């Protein structure tokens, strides 16, 4: 049984003329133990997809099964309980509560589970030890480096022992040292048997993944399995083979990575999208022509 099974999921924001189609009939199946990197340009719907999978948001259309159970139309409180018990969410901006210590932050999800205070702090302390932050327990987030804050955030995501970890650009606000720290940690969590989804813009980080999913304009345009330790082949093209973007490409907002990604389906023309500042069909056609 797959951990995640998404079928024809669409997400629309706004209404009327201002409608944005953030996800367009996405299908995605993720098996237990996969370590999936999600890539794609800004605004292509990666966060929207992560939020839907993490039950922070609901799809406008389509079905989502988590661990074989339909969760696409849950009541808010029910969703909260599933989030608490089965999903760990890691944000780009860390999202620790600034007035709580690292330890208290990590213990936060347990607060909503009727566990006694002493037990909560003990569990949180154990997890912090696992992520190598035992000596920083009583630091406030403002007293920690970015990498350390994100490690505490990962500890918080792990404290309920969830099977699924979702990380939306976990290294987006970190330097290379911080990124390494965080990715090594996620990698270790993966080895413990967790399923992990993470969003990244850095092709190098696909080395940690077992699978890479490329998105563009609300759809999944490519999906490849890769070996751990190897940069995914499509991402590699972006990294080594593709020529630097031309001035024309810059104007059109085409990144080196997207030029490496195969064509986007052109069925989008008929969709009632109202996206600003983006001309998906034109740019992808051009990318195709160049190759």
């Amino acid at each position, binding site marked *: 049984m797959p951990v995640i099974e998404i079928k024809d999921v669409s997400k629309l924001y706004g209404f009327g003329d201002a409608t944005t189609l953030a996800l367009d009939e996405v299908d995605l199946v993720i098996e237990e133990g996969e370590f999936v990197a999600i890539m794609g340009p800004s605004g292509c719907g990666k966060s929207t997809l992560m939020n839907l999978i993490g039950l922070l948001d609901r799809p406008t259309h389509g079905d989502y099964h988590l661990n074989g159970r339909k969760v696409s139309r849950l009541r808010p*409180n029910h969703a909260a309980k599933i989030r608490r018990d089965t999903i760990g969410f890691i944000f780009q901006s860390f999202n620790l509560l600034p007035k709580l210590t690292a330890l208290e932050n990590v213990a936060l999800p347990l607060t909503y589970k009727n566990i006694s205070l002493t037990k909560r702090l003990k569990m949180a302390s154990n997890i912090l030890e696992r992520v190598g932050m035992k000596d920083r327990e009583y630091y406030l987030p403002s007293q920690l480096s970015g990498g350390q804050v994100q490690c505490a955030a990962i500890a918080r995501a792990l404290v309920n022992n969830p099977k699924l970890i979702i990380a939306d650009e976990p290294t987006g606000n970190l330097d290379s040292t911080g990124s390494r720290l965080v990715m090594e940690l996620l990698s270790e969590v993966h080895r413990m048997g967790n399923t992990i989804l993470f969003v990244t813009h850095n092709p190098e980080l696909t080395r940690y993944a077992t699978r890479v999913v490329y998105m563009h304009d609300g759809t999944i345009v490519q999906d490849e399995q890769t070996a751990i330790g190897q940069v995914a082949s499509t991402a590699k093209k972006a990294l080594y083979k593709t020529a630097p973007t031309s001035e024309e490409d810059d104007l059109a907002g085409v990144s080196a990575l997207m030029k490496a990604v195969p064509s986007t389906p052109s069925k989008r023309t008929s969709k009632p999208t109202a996206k600003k500042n983006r001309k998906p069909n034109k740019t992808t056609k051009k990318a195709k022509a160049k190759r």
Partner: protein
Amino acid sequence: MKTLSRGNFKAAWKSVRRNRGRSFLTMLGIIIGVASVVSVVSIGEGVKRQVTMQINHVGSDLITVRAGQLSTSANGRLSVLSGVHVSGSLSDKDLSSVRQTATGATVVPLAVVGGAVTGEHGAYQDGPVIATSTNLPSVLNQSTAFGTFFTGDDDQNNVAVLGAQAARRMFDEEVPLGHTFGFRGKEFMVRGVLNDFTTTPLSTDVDFNNAIYIPYAMGQQLTDNSTLPYEILVKPADASKADKTVDAIRSGLLKNHGDSSDFSVLKQSQTQATTDGVLSLLTELIAGAAAISLLVGGIGIMNITLVSVTERMHEVGIRKAVGATNRQILNEFMAEAVVLSVGGGVIGIIIAGIIDVVLRLTTTLAPVMQWQAVVIAAGISILIGVVFGSAPALKAARKDPITALRGE
């Protein structure tokens, strides 16, 4: 329904303390409201008890005859308020009528004699000179602290008995027996000093503690028989005869007054009913006005909870993302509102207590703080927290996690 937990209150307490200044200002409305409602009710209750005590002291069978109509109808409470003011005086004919009709009873007239009093410190203007009969102490269950009250033999003598307060103000000595003061061109000698009368605050009566008492006949003589009694006290020989005596006096006076009842004959128990009615009405009115400040305080709490919700929207998003349910978020904010309102209530009750003590020390009032009033005030504080905190707290609880995370 899952109720607020101790953890909720601990966290709320922490947050309230972190924003100490803001929290105090928010509580102020509740503090003022609770403090004023509780002290007004306490003062009212205190006065009622003082009146009861005084009536018990003189005995409930004491009959008071006064000029003017005093309405005692149970339903027309507002008319009671206007009826308290008694004007005019009784005539000598009334006095003899009362003496005749109230058979076997002790009759004591009270008349104010006008004129300047010159004591050791010059003019004494704090109290009236009352001409009365020798039985005043026995009718009022009062005794002299020093010396004696005048007797039947003193009718032609220039002697006086002083109220305790008058004695203190007119003379330097603790016991001014034998000292003299001037009144209407004559010298009066102090024969005795009365014990303190239990005073009733808010009463429009003549204050017996400030008064100077002279024999009734002496008063008449000084004024060429033009002094008229403003009140006649009648003590029946037997408490069981009180009602009959009242009826007898009334019919006698009606004849005198040509069948118009522009006078009143009241037993103490009736006086008590009247004052109780007036006091209850006053207490209710003032407490009602004070309660408006509770409403204002509640709105303050609603406002600050709303501010808190807006400030902490991002935090709400994080908490929801890690699994907080709507109710758990609701409880967090409700706990804060309740801590604020109950905190205000407790401080208000403490302040009411302080006001009570200060009033006892500086005035004749003796407020009585009843536990019922305290419990009701505390209950209302909790209610205010729940009622006024719920709208903003619900707003936070119902935000979906993504919107909240964006801090909107």
